[in-house]
């Protein structure tokens, strides 16, 4: 079962904030976040390795709650360049199978 992301889609105005959630029914040992622009490959954004860890990358940050098997991606003061589909991803514990979440389409309007 793949991680479920919410919301499925979100539309923002430039400067607004957004939160994208990723929930797994199975234990998460690490979570990765990616952004995919239309017609392009997914691009790695950041990794969360420990429970409760929070990382930042410009105005994009993420948190990881190991106990709740959830991760959240925070986009603050969104820019037009943030538009795309965001995926969480993780390696299934004990396997070499890499699983992506269901994806969240984000559109930032001027």
């Amino acid at each position, binding site marked *: 079962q793949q991680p479920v992301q919410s919301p499925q889609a979100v539309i923002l105005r430039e400067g607004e904030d957004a939160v994208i959630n990723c929930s797994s029914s199975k234990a998460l040992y690490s979570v*990765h976040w990616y952004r995919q622009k239309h017609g392009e490959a997914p691009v790695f954004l950041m990794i969360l390795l420990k429970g409760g860890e929070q990382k930042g990358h410009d105005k994009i940050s993420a948190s990881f709650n190991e106990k709740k098997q959830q991760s959240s991606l925070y986009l603050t003061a969104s820019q037009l360049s943030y538009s795309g589909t965001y995926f969480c991803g993780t390696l299934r514990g004990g396997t070499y*199978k890499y699983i992506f979440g269901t994806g969240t389409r984000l559109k930032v309007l001027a």
Partner: protein
Amino acid sequence: EPEVTQTPSHQVTQMGQEVILRCVPISNHLYFYWYRQILGQKVEFLVSFYNNEISEKSEIFDDQFSVERPDGSNFTLKIRSTKLEDSAMYFCAIRGRENDEQYFGPGTRLTVT
């Protein structure tokens, strides 16, 4: 960031034909992955390949699919007898050196007619 190239960028083939998609990492890597993404849908894991052997494959990766590393650098995905539903973007990815994050090639768009 590791770099991966893929060829061709776009392949059009007739149903029943065989196709070979290629992936070339810029530097040496041991872990390779292939993914499929049908237009507008999720990224689906096909197979992982470690040290010249398949380490894991999904239920999608049936007998019509195979992977090889024929010359120690190129990494290929072969689809033996293509079906219409094989039309998708196929991405090759390598694993980050310290963790499991994925670095993708630009993809090959496969169109089966």
